């Protein structure tokens, strides 16, 4: 087993301009590792959606990306309001985003469904008032 690699990013809350920076940086690192472009795209889409979610709903958080010898793991943790009904949140088109956020073109209710679609494993742990931790895996071999 080779050594595990870890990248950590802080995602700034309320800053739509910087949302997406972590996913761009992850892409650069994964390309350098020689990961297949299709896999990189999955990771970057899942990561981008997750970053946006943390900005919209949770005033930011941290994104940890792990690479081991078979998969890329993404752990997004925030200390936001938590998700009241996870199964509803997983439905396409369901969103609790505010009108302001929607006016910016976000809040289409596709964030979590896309994260699920582009990853091989996804787990959501959420406590109301405590925060949310989402773990995703994308296998690369």
């Amino acid at each position: 087993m080779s050594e595990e690699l870890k990248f950590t990013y802080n995602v700034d809350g309320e800053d739509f301009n910087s949302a997406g920076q972590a996913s761009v940086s992850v892409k650069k690192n994964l390309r350098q590792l020689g990961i297949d472009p299709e896999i990189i795209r999955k990771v970057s889409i899942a990561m981008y959606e997750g970053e946006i979610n943390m900005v919209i709903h949770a005033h930011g958080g941290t994104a940890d990306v792990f690479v081991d010898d078979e998969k890329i793991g993404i752990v997004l943790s925030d200390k936001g309001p938590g998700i009241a009904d996870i199964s509803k949140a997983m439905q396409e088109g369901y969103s609790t985003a505010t009108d302001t956020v929607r006016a910016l073109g976000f809040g289409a209710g596709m964030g979590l469904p896309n994260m699920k679609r582009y990853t091989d494993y996804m787990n959501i742990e959420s406590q109301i008032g405590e925060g949310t931790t989402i773990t995703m895996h994308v296998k690369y071999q």
Partner: protein
Amino acid sequence: MSTYIHSVSLDASKCTGCTTCMKHCPTEAIRIKDNCACIDAQRCIDCAQCIRHCPNHAKKSNYSSLSEIQKYKYKIALPAPALMAQFENLDSVDIVLQGLLDVGFDDVFEVARGAEIVSAYTRSYLATPGIKKPVLSTACPVIARLVMLRFPFLKDNLIPLLPPIEIAADLAVKEAKEKHPELRDEDICTCFISPCPAKVSYIKNGFGSYKSKITLAVSMSEVYMHLLHVMKHDVPAEVSARAGRVGLSWAMCGGEASALLNDKIIAADGIDNVISVLDQIEDGNISNVDFVELNACPGGCVGGVMALENPFIAKNRLHTIRRYMPVTQENIKQFEGAIPDSGFTENLPDYKPLNKLSDNIAESMRLMNKIQLMCKELPGIDCGSCGAPNCRAFAEDVVRGLADRNDCIIAYRDYIKDYINNYPGSRKNDG
């Protein structure tokens, strides 16, 4: 890839090793070694940022000299639409075309015509079911190369069409042979008058497995000097322009996209903006867009480093010339089927990721761990004194064995301090 011929080079006698070009290179292809800027050919995309920013004019574009056309019996000029924007008080494109004949060409075929044909085809291509959208233009060779090196997932979004210069060259040769059936292939020279080194590279290297049929590329600034002496307002031109507004507008950012009569378009210029648009497309963050025009140079082709005029002034001139021009000289619909079979391409260059650490992922991971550890120890001020554009790139170079850790003057200073403090007999803790 090692056989790829670039068109950006360095005049070592003028280079002071100042780090300006290195700081502006979008692919981190430049390192300063022994006070001289070296370009890594595998990473270079011929965007000409280094030429644009070099304060000592040490970075140069390579191209053929105009005198080389004399070797051929029948010389066809292929002027880029941006050429028309270089002259003050020009009221008609015809004057420039006549000027080209007067400086020694036998025939002229405007690249703007090739562009109009590409526009017509693109309109119908966008309506094809099942194509990957947004469709990306291949007109700027920097973009095609950048996609292959850095955005391989977007490879299928590239329109499967060779750039307008190639379409123009193909049609120009056909027309020449119709007019002069006695001409053999080797008698004919197609000479592109280029605003940028990227198009020169395209002509030398082709696209994927396709080899360009254009004979030579000369610099717009050289041709400009020759034209200035021969262009006349008072003598009627024997040739007249066959392209219209649509083709001419390709010289500036937005021209290609707006010719599509579709509002689901993006047009971006400047290499950093281009990269950020491609990143967003790759992340699935741009929806409802049919076509993306990307230009490496600021302002589009008028911003090429081999164009003389400031791109903003050049754009203003194009607006003036366009005012009295028809949209196209012929009905653009007629052009839809006008692309020669050789104008289509399916053989894109192979994906060659920029900067891959190793062919083995486990080994890459080991190296990246070392890079990350080293980055934490480096000052993080990206000063460039070590000869790498930033601390991260320096850490990569050290881990790959291409640089020495002590090339970092700040780390070296700390090392010396440490050495002195720990030297037997030195007084420790005296600051």
